């Protein structure tokens, strides 16, 4: 199977402290891959390492080419959209301005216009509120906005940083249903990092388990759901 993103011996640093210790993982094309882990396991760091926002060691390949050490804007230009931790809403800009920032590195005006309509189709609530400041949206709506903003890049790979954070379970299900739809109908490959293992393993094809900066288990999501130690630690049954 073809891997869209591959990391080997990936290390990441905050200042002098090493947070990721030589990870090896792959994100298969057209699939949803999840990295599960508790607080402080290094999930957010992992995504920031891919986006070029922190200092890394080792190798990251995207569509066969090395991207480690490149500037964030160059990585975004390759089609990697990052939906950051805590939604990253630009509260003083309108919903539409937020969406346009998602397409910041693109120059094709008509394409951007089309994609606005496309994400409004996925998220009708954003269309209703397109002229409102994004700061007045509810938590769930802001997460929809963050996801829609990621799509505005017309990405090949979508990085999602704990979208379930602070959302009611029913909203998490709704959100993941949309992620699944985006993955299937738009052919967008997804790398998701999550704490909510139940919902995430339901959505994903492939899963990795991250503990204090190292990958301890990996396999098809369906298998990890049956794994006893994962069930006890992350699924709670």
């Amino acid at each position, binding site marked *: 199977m073809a891997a869209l993103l591959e990391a080997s011996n990936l290390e990441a640093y905050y200042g002098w402290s090493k947070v990721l210790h030589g990870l090896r993982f792959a994100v298969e094309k057209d699939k949803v891959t999840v990295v599960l882990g508790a607080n402080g396991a290094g999930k957010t760091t992992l995504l920031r390492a891919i986006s070029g*926002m922190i200092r890394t060691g080792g190798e990251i390949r995207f569509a066969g080419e090395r991207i480690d050490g490149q500037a964030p804007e160059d990585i975004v230009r390759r089609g990697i959209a990052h939906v950051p931790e805590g939604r990253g*809403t630009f509260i*003083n800009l309108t919903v539409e301005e937020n969406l346009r*920032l998602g397409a*910041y590195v693109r120059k094709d005006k008509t394409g951007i216009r089309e994609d606005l309509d496309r994400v409004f189709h996925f998220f009708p609530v954003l269309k209703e509120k397109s002229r409102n400041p994004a700061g007045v949206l509810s938590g769930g709506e802001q997460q929809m906005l963050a996801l829609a903003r990621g799509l505005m890049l017309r990405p090949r790979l979508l990085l999602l940083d704990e979208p379930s954070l602070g959302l009611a379970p029913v909203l998490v299900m709704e959100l993941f249903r949309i992620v699944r739809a985006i993955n299937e109908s738009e052919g967008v490959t997804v790398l998701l990092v999550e704490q909510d293992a139940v919902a995430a393993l339901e959505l994903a094809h492939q899963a990795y388990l991250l503990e204090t900066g190292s990958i301890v288990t990996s396999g098809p999501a369906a298998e990890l759901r049956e794994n006893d130690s994962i069930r006890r630690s992350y699924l709670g049954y």
Partner: protein
Amino acid sequence: MRLGLLLVAGVGYLLPAALSSYQTFEFTQVFIYAVALLGLNILIGYNGQFSLGHGAFYAIGAYTTAIMTTRWDIPYGWAIIAAGALSLVVGFLFGLPALRFEGLYLALATFALALATPQVLKYFDTWTGGSQGIVLDKPSVPLGLPISADQYLYYLSLTVLVILLLLAHNLLRGRAGRAITAIRDNPIAAEAMGVNAALYKSLTFGVSAMYTGIAGALGALAVAFVAPDTFSAFLSINFLVGSVVGGVASISGAIFGGAFIEFVPTYAQEISRAAPWAIFGLTLIIFMYVMPTGVAGLIRRVAAALARSMASEQPAPDSQTAAAEAAEGNRGSARAVLGKPD
């Protein structure tokens, strides 16, 4: 915005007929300060960075104009443009290293610039005339227009202000403006969108310095004199006061702020000759208390409240107005001033 600009331009162009020559000069100063504050508002209000050193760029603009027009006999129009360009470059270059600092640390770094300015000007006395300063010729009225030299400077400053207001408006509305504001709201998310935050912050600092430098150029022409002690750290602090009082996250706020720093010290002097700055301080506190988002913020809230009451008279209430009004509270708030992401 269009309407407000038309109003400013319309009233502005008609006003001199009703003004004494001293009042004309005062309003010229208001426009000049407004240009300087516009630069500061772009920086503080939209990009979330502090500067306690913009007096230095005002000085750069003023001295560039003074030296070019008196020593090299270059027409003042070119001198104004050169003053803007030089300030842009110096601001950008200062920004590159300084913008690694955040918030209060940046404020201190820029304050160092403000403190150094008068002494640097005195040190290079072969160029700057040292403590004596430089006396400029007031621009002569072109085309034989039937107006005084002071009135001409008034119109010149107003015209420059209107042009720069339009420029700021267009800059902040487009792609660059979204990037500038995104950096203030959430720098990490802005970076994740592919915005080069470091470059944009330096560029914004440069543009901001350009505005203030152009104001300095006009200021030198209006006063027809430059001297080092006019550009003390106090000037920089005054700019910050004007920017915040007017409404830091707004374009129109610059005009209100300009009026505040021009007129309030004069009135304070009339109320108490013994302690004018105490009166000024008191006025400042009252302004902050009554208008925590600046004059422009107050006007916006009143307008939103009016729109809401008009909407409530209609059978179908407009839910968007309420949401928009709730959001107005966010705009230009302390959080925005401090540039803290949520």
